[in-house]
C-alpha cells in the first residue's frame, strides 16, 4: 500500500498533468484552488481523475472544506 507521501506525490502528478502546470511548481501544502486557478467544479473533475488513478470511489463530500493537496491526500489515503 502507498505511504501518505507516495499518495500525495501521485496526486500532485495527476493535478500537474490534468491542469497542465509544471509539476515542480506544486507542493503538498499548496491551496489547489489558488495555485491551479480552478473553481469547485474543476476541483471535482480532479477528484474524478484521482478516483480513476487509485481505483476507488470518492463521494463529492470528501472534498468539502479541503483546499490543499496534503489534506486531500489524507482523505484519499484513508480510503485506500
Amino acid at each position, binding site marked *: 500500500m502507498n505511504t501518505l507521501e507516495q499518495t500525495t506525490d501521485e496526486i500532485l502528478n495527476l493535478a500537474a498533468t490534468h491542469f497542465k*502546470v509544471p509539476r515542480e*511548481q506544486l507542493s503538498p501544502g499548496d*491551496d489547489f*484552488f*489558488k*495555485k*491551479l*486557478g480552478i*473553481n*469547485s*467544479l474543476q476541483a*471535482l*473533475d480532479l*477528484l*474524478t481523475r484521482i478516483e480513476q488513478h487509485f481505483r476507488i470511489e470518492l*463521494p*463529492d*463530500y470528501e472534498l*468539502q*472544506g479541503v*483546499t*490543499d493537496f496534503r489534506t486531500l491526500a489524507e482523505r484519499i489515503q484513508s480510503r485506500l
Partner: protein
Amino acid sequence: MLDLRRYNCLGEALRAALDRWPSEICLIEADRDRENARLTYQQFKQAALPLARSLQNAGFNRDSRAAIIMTNQSKWLISAYAIFYTGGVLVPLDYKLSAAEQLQLLAHSKAEVLIAEYHLWRAIVQAENFKSLGTHLVLVTEAPAGADLAGAKRWENFHDSRLPIFVPRTRRDPACIVYSSGTGGRPKGCVLTHDNYLEQCRALTAIFPFSPGTRYLSILPTNHAIDFMVGFIGPFTCGATVVHLRTLRPEYIRDAFTRYKITYMTVVPMLLKTLERGLRQRFDELPGGRRRALRALIGINRAFTRRRPRLKLSGRLLGQVHKGFGGELQALFVGGAFTEPATLQFFYDLGIPVGNGYGCTEAGTVITLNDFNPFRADTVGKQLPGIEVNILDPDEEGIGEVAVRGRTVMSHYLDDPEMTAETIVDGWLRTGDLGRVDKHGHLQLLGRKKNMIVTEEGKNVYPEDIEAAFEGLPVKEFCVFAANYLWPERTMTGEQLILVIHPEPKPQIESTPVTTPLPTPTVALENNEAAAAASDAVSEPISSNSSDVAPAPRSDESTPQMDERHLLSPEISAEIDGRNRRLLNYKRVAGYLVWDCDFPRTASLKIKRLDLAEQIRKSRGRHHVVYL
C-alpha cells in the same frame, strides 16, 4: 396542478398532492449511474408518515423547529414533509458550511430536532462548539452499521406505523427559517410564512407550469431558496418528478439529462459556463465542414426564434445538441448570481432557452424572471405576477435601489426587529441591489448598494461574516469590505473582498522604498485584473504628492497621515495569507489595503462601516490594494 388558492399551508398542499397522484413518480435519487431510490407519491407518503408519527411521539408539534443538514436526496424531502405534516417549522441549513457555523445557526434558530447525514453529523460532533448544540433529538441518515452516533438516532429506524395527526397551519404562520447570511456575525434568519411559499409557487407555475411527466433535475442545494421552491414545492404540487443526483460532477449531470429525459433544471452561472465551455470545445473539435454546417444551422435557428422559442424546430435543426441534453429539455433556469448575457445568448441560439431570474431569500426566492416573450439576454426579466418592483430614488438614468413588495416577501428576520425595520420599510423590501426597469418592464441589474458580494457559484458573502477569521491579527484594527462597495462599479461580476488594515502605530514594515517587490505572486492570482493591479502597485511608486490621492480624511478633528507604502510586513502578510487560506475559497479576501487612520466608531465601539467606506473612497483607489 393543484389550485394553491385552496390551501392554507404547505403541509395541506403537499398532502393533497400525494393523494392526487398516487401512482406518479415523485422522486428519483441517483448516485452516479446507480439509482438509489424511485418513489411514487404514494410511496413517498408511506415513507414520511411513520417519521411524522415518531416526531410527534417525541413531542414535536405545532411551531416546533427542526433543522435539516443534508445534501440533495430523497430523505431531505421526506423529512421536510414530515415536519410540515406535524405543523413544525423547517430550518434548512447549508450543508456546505463548516460544522462550527452550522452549530452557530442551530443555536440561533433554537431548533429542537436536527436531521443530518452521517458524514455531516460526524463533523458536527468533532467541532469545538459541539457542546452548544441544544437540540433534543438528532436523527442521522445512512450511518454505517456499528457507528458511534454520539447520542443520535438512526433516521431509518425512527418510524412508527401508527398514523400521525395532521396539524394544520394558517397562511400567516411561519413555515421555514432560512438563513441568508450571518455565520460570522449577525445571523439573518428569514422567517418565511406558508403564504409566502404558496404565493411564490403560484406565481412561478403560472409562467412555467409543471405537470405529471415533467422531470426536474435538482442539483442546487435544497436548503437554498431556489431549489426548495423549484426542486420540491413546485414539482410536488403539480404531480411532477424531482431527480436528485448525489454528485455534482459535470459528467454525471450530462448523463442524467439523457438517462432521465430531464425537462427543467436550475443552475448557477458557474455551471452554465462550464456547460458552455464543454459545448464550445466540442464544436471546435468538429471537422471543418461539419463545423461550418453547425454554424449555419445555429444562424437559422437564431433567425426563427427571434420572437419566441420554437423548441420543436430547434430540436430538428440542432438534433445532436439537443440529444446531448436528453432531447426533452424545455428550459434551463439560472439564478443565484449574475450571468453573462453572452452565455445566455449562446444557449438560446442553440434552441435551449435559459430563464434568467433574480431574487433573494427575503423575497421568497424569485422576484423577476425571463418569460421568453421575447427572450432577453441583457435583463433578469419581468416581475412575477403578484410581485411589485420599485426603483427607489432613481438617478437621471433611472437607476436606484431595487425594492420589492408582495405576498412572497418574508415576514421578518428571526429575533431581530431592528434589522427587519431596516430591511422592510413601509412594506417595501430593500434589496440593496441597484437596477432600473426599462420600458418593457424588464429589470436590469447594475451593481450593489450593500456591502456584500455574490460569487459565480451563487454564494452570498457578507464581509462581517468572515472578519472572525482575522481576529487577533497583530494590527491595530481591521475591517472587511466588498471592493465594489468601497469603489462602486456598475457590474455584478468579478466581485471581491478587501481586508482593510490599520497597522499598529509603530510601523510593522521596514523603511524600504515603495518599489519593494510584492510577495512573489502565486501561479494563479484571483484574476488578471488583480494581477495587473498588483503589478501596478509595484511599478508605480505612490508619493504623497500623487495627484490621484486626495487629502487624508479627518478623524477626531486631526488630520491623520496616510501610510504611503501600502505594504504590510512579510510576517503580517503571511499571517493574513495563512488565515485566508483556512477560509472556504469563495469566502477569501482578494487582497489588503493599508489604512493609517483610526476607524470611525460608535459610542459602543462598533465600526461605522459606511463612514469608513466613505473615507477610504475619498483617498484610496483599487490600485492601492495589495493582492494576496
